């Protein structure tokens, strides 16, 4: 992608995100979210984040080729356990990366 196209992309996301943040503050009293939509919005983070994490862990090459002995899978499972038990970002990143490096060293 050219630099100009990238700037256009950044600007579009920036303006769109600002509009989402400002929406109700600006239009208070004139805007109602239907109950079904607000219920659905509650599941957006879980769904989108899982849809990003799983393929990135399962396919280290970026496309649908399953790699046998992929060290990312055990590393991610361990990191998920740490995230579940501690809710600590730093510890999750540290354990996940540590496990990946350890497994890569063992395999070489």
């Amino acid at each position: 992608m050219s630099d100009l196209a990238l700037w256009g992309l950044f600007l579009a996301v920036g303006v769109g995100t600002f509009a989402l943040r400002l929406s109700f503050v600006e239009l208070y009293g004139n805007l109602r979210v239907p109950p079904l939509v607000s219920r659905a919005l509650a599941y957006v983070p879980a769904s989108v984040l899982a849809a990003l994490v799983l393929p990135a862990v399962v396919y280290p090459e970026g496309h649908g080729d399953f790699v046998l002995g992929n060290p990312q899978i055990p590393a991610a499972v361990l990191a998920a356990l740490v995230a579940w038990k501690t809710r600590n970002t730093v510890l999750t990143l540290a354990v996940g990366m540590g496990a990946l490096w350890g497994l890569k060293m063992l395999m070489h």
Partner: protein
Amino acid sequence: MPYPSGRAAFGAGVRALLPLTPGVIPFGLVTGVMAVKMGMSPTMAIGMTLLFYSGSAQMVALQLIQGGVLPVAIVATALIINLRFIMYSASLAPYLHALPRRWTWPLSYMLSDQAYALCVLRLSSGELGRYGYHYYAGTAAAMWLAWNLAVVAGVFLGGSIPESWSLGFTIPLSFLALLVPGIRNIPALVAAIVGGGIAVAAVDLPYNLGLVTASIGGVVAGVVTESLRRKASQADYRAEGESQ
């Protein structure tokens, strides 16, 4: 306790945010490092950060740009991730909407998960008094500064980190760190399992349609599960009532 002045409320907001910075700074660093690793200039990486001011959307966009995904799909995906801000905006609106635009526009731009989480309960209980929006402004401005400084630090560190460190893996890991604590009930777990499952199965669909399909599928699964559980618990309640 209501604050005696706007300045005191702002200071209290800043102090309330400080304990959250250890969770924010590593994300910012990784975001900055990833942007320059992809070949972006520092100006571009920092411009992107200022325009997005949304770590998860920015990480996703970086990953999709690297994957050569259609720009329209990247914008749509980033905005879908940021749809949650509509909910935050709706719940903060009663306390902010009467302010002049020189306040509401910057305060809306600086709206973040962290500032929202710190303020929403204290604002709605009324304990902050008339300077409640100064308190919010303190949390929001401190968060903004912490995030942007962390990304800038990442941008200038990025070039010196060797490829063999597999730093790309920090992206799914940081999403995982956001995802797992966010799953607080069964419908959210179902949404995550269905969303993740479809994404793995549909990874070869063109134009990143796999991600969009998976996201919608996960949300639908979450809403359906919630409805089924509600019906089931109502049925239990009725059955108990009849047996008595």
